[in-house]
């Protein structure tokens, strides 16, 4: 199975995503250039972190107009799986693949730290190898990560089990202190209604090895690749 990792000008977690897929998972990966229209037969699209177009105007606002994004959106409509991390999450929201928006952190500062996440839903193709309420340790590094949506959207996300990850403390409690950016309801990651697009601010690709302090990201990547191998429909 092959992941297509989109390279926007300013992407900087593209190589990390590549290493996660190829070195750790042993799967194939290709880089997809933002000016191209060809997804090169990728089975999974990764929108990596970084500062696409320098975050000018608004994080993700310009990247959504890249030529490659037309194909990515079409791929998503066909039910293809998309993993949108950090800046990728911002782009996915701007492109309408996911509801809501990521605003400037409540502290108004960039925040880089390992955080705890609670797995809220294992019914997605990205999280099937976790167990319910499992607490993960995964790094974050962002300035615009405060997830925000209107009340109806939040209710729908919660009601339909589309909140996938929540910021929690080490014991699994979604406290105010455990929320690094002021996200509504401590939301760290969501899926779309069809379940094929996951957006998350934390970086699972940085939590793949003991040497880096955590291996909690592996199950996410292996969940989605297993779903591809077993032909799970979107």
């Amino acid at each position: 199975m092959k992941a297509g990792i989109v390279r926007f000008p300013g992407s900087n977690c593209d190589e990390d995503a590549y290493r996660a897929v190829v070195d750790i998972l042993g799967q194939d990966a290709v880089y997809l250039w933002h000016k191209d229209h060809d997804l090169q037969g990728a089975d999974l699209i990764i929108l990596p972190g970084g500062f696409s177009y320098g975050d000018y105007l608004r994080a993700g606002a310009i990247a959504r107009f890249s030529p490659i994004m037309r194909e990515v959106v079409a791929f998503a409509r066909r039910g293809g799986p998309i993993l949108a991390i950090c800046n990728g999450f911002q782009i996915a929201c701007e492109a309408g693949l996911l509801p809501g928006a990521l605003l400037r952190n409540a502290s108004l500062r960039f925040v880089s730290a390992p955080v705890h996440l609670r797995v809220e839903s294992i019914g997605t193709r990205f999280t099937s190898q976790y167990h319910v309420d499992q607490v993960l340790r995964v790094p974050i590094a962002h300035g615009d990560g405060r997830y925000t949506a209107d009340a109806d959207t939040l209710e729908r996300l919660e009601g339909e089990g589309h909140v996938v990850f929540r910021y929690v403390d080490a014991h699994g409690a979604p406290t105010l202190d455990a929320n690094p950016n002021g996200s509504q309801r401590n939301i760290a990651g969501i899926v779309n209604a069809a379940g094929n697009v996951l957006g998350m601010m934390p970086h699972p690709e940085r939590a793949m090895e003991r040497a880096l302090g955590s291996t909690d990201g592996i199950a996410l990547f292996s969940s989605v690749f297993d779903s591809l191998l077993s032909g799970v429909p979107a």
Partner: protein
Amino acid sequence: MTAVQSRPGDPEITAALVAEHGITTFEYERLVSMLGRVPTFTELGVVSALWSEHCSYKHSRPMLKTLPTKAPWVLQGPGENAGVISVGDGWAVAFKIESHNHPSAVEPYQGAATGVGGILRDVFTMGARPVALLNSLRFGPLTSSRVRWLFAGVVKGIGDYGNCVGVPTVGGEVVFDPSYEGNPLVNAMCVGLMREEELMLAVASGVGNPIMAVGARTGRDGIHGASFASEDLSAESEAKRPMVQVGDPFTEKLLLEASLELIRSGHIVAIQDMGAAGLTSSSAEMAERGDVGVTIDVTKVPVRESGMTPYEILLSESQERMLVVAKQGHEQQVRDILERWDLEAAVIGEVIAEPVYRVTEGERVVAEFPGSRLVTECPQYVLEGRESSALKAARERDPHAVEPLAEERDHAWTLERLLASPTIASKAWVWQQYDSTVRTSTVRGPGSDAAVVRLHGTDKAIALCIDGNGRHVALSPRNGGRAAVCEAARNVACTGARPRAVTNNLNFGNPKKPEVYFQLQEAIAGMGEACTILETPVTGGNVSLYNENPQGAIHPTPTIGMVGVLESLTHLTPSAFQAADDQIVLLGEPTTELGASEYLLAIHGLTIGAPPHCDPFAERRLIDTLLEAIAAGCVCSAHDCSDGGLAVALAECAISERDRRFGFSVDLSAWSSLPHRALLFGEAHGRIVVSSKDAAQVLRIAEQRGVPARVIGVVTDPMTGAHFTISHDTFSAPIDWLARAFHEAIPTVMDGTTPAEHVIAASHVPLTD
């Protein structure tokens, strides 16, 4: 050859104009005799930049030449954009440090950001991919609201730039001291990785090869930045804010990718950052290194505003620009690569055989210098140094005569207060604003003795740190120079890595003052001694002089960027304690020394006494001992003793990790005859706190190498607290109490509602929940 013409509208060359350009009468005469005529306005500008202290090192070069620069692993020493060492298996590391002190003093955000941008370019122009950033910062006390503004701005500037480019900021140091109140220091270090064969030098060659400007367009920002950095700060400095360049990290990221692609493509022969003094210095230096001539037509330089004069185009320090010498006939391929990254490339000149440096504006020659003499004719000054009598007197004061405060009867009070001193306290507030984990290579990030960055696909890693202690250098410059190198080496060794090479940033006052010149001479001599003994040659660096403002000069502050090599990640060693019941061993020995300590400054407001003696031979034995013990597998953690002394080092081992703490119990009775303040808080060199499950083996290795070592205690559960015994003098402190002082001091000052002076100057007031 056309005669050089001055342009209509150029000001007349007068004594006042020459002086305004920072050129002395002596230097002006030298210029006139080199040219055989009066210079044009454009030429005057070029010379003012190239002969500025910042570009020419005219006061420091003779001294810098005494530093050791060679070792079998050094692939490129001083004189290039960055130094390069081999780390084995065909891998090489390029690294360099640079200051952005003056710009940061007037415009902290852009000043610091562009400092990061410049040092990144210095590294990737060597062909190396930047893999780590570090920084060394100095500010006045945080009780000043202006200092808090500078501190917050600098940190945000560094973070925003490095984060966007996607290079992790993995370590650094921040020191607060009244001597930096009006003149903060911002030193940034970048480390890059490449295959040895990818090394690229900035040497122009090949007559007929086109010279190309690449990257961002040239604007009017930063004109005379190099000259501004070569004079004292003053009340007028604020007015020079427009001289500060403005950074764009997004363009930098594109330029980084494009430059690495260009270098690998084989279409170019040389590449150099247009940094300080912009187009002028990059082109003149490349020509000088290649011993060829160059001609540049300023009308071909892509500009972002109209009506720019040759003077402005040559001296602009607009950021994110490169000068490239392409292979003749490969211009289009160069343009294609740049275009792929949405950047521009324009042919602006040519390498010529005639040994001249010529600038034209279309047909008109506006500046012409005889070959490399433009660079080599810059005078070098060797002055007379003399020790400051005030500093000598301060050194000669006896720190033991300082009357302890009543509160100091409880050493726990002193310890807690030192842990809350911003120089010692946790800098998590700072480094949480830096992306330290991007590139998935950071195996030890900020907060460790040194950062460790692994080399993908190997079992190796490099250890990196920056260290310097201006107070020690002020009170004893030669010893302080040695100590800066030794402390950096110790920090690198604490991770399990062998220290290999040094880049240095010399931050000093006005060298024309004999007292400052003396400090430079002595500190450089001390650094050289230590680098020779530790076999860590200097591969490059930066000199920042004129760090003075009307309140006086800063402490002389050489900062040492050290690179070490960890042969196997299995030897990676943490600085914090790892398990209860591990034994605590002190390598090295406490002394009576208390001078120049953070204790004296934080508790008594004093910078006095002789700094602790630094013996590089003893440091070498210490490092060899530690590395042997680590290789033998008998070291669980290792942490260097520096600011705050042994008591602070022990506390840091117990509390530095936010969510994994320990207690400890130590018995220092073996040294009960020493003054207890010196034993606990003195900053004697050559000491490392080690925790071990096999202390006997650590002691055995130390004994064989002639290093004093002693088991001083045991790591315990955090609930049992920190216990110290010095014969009949015992004291304890709850771990939570120490941890709160250490972790909350800076956030409380920067974000809290408590006035700063209550946190820093009166931290003994219990911080309530």
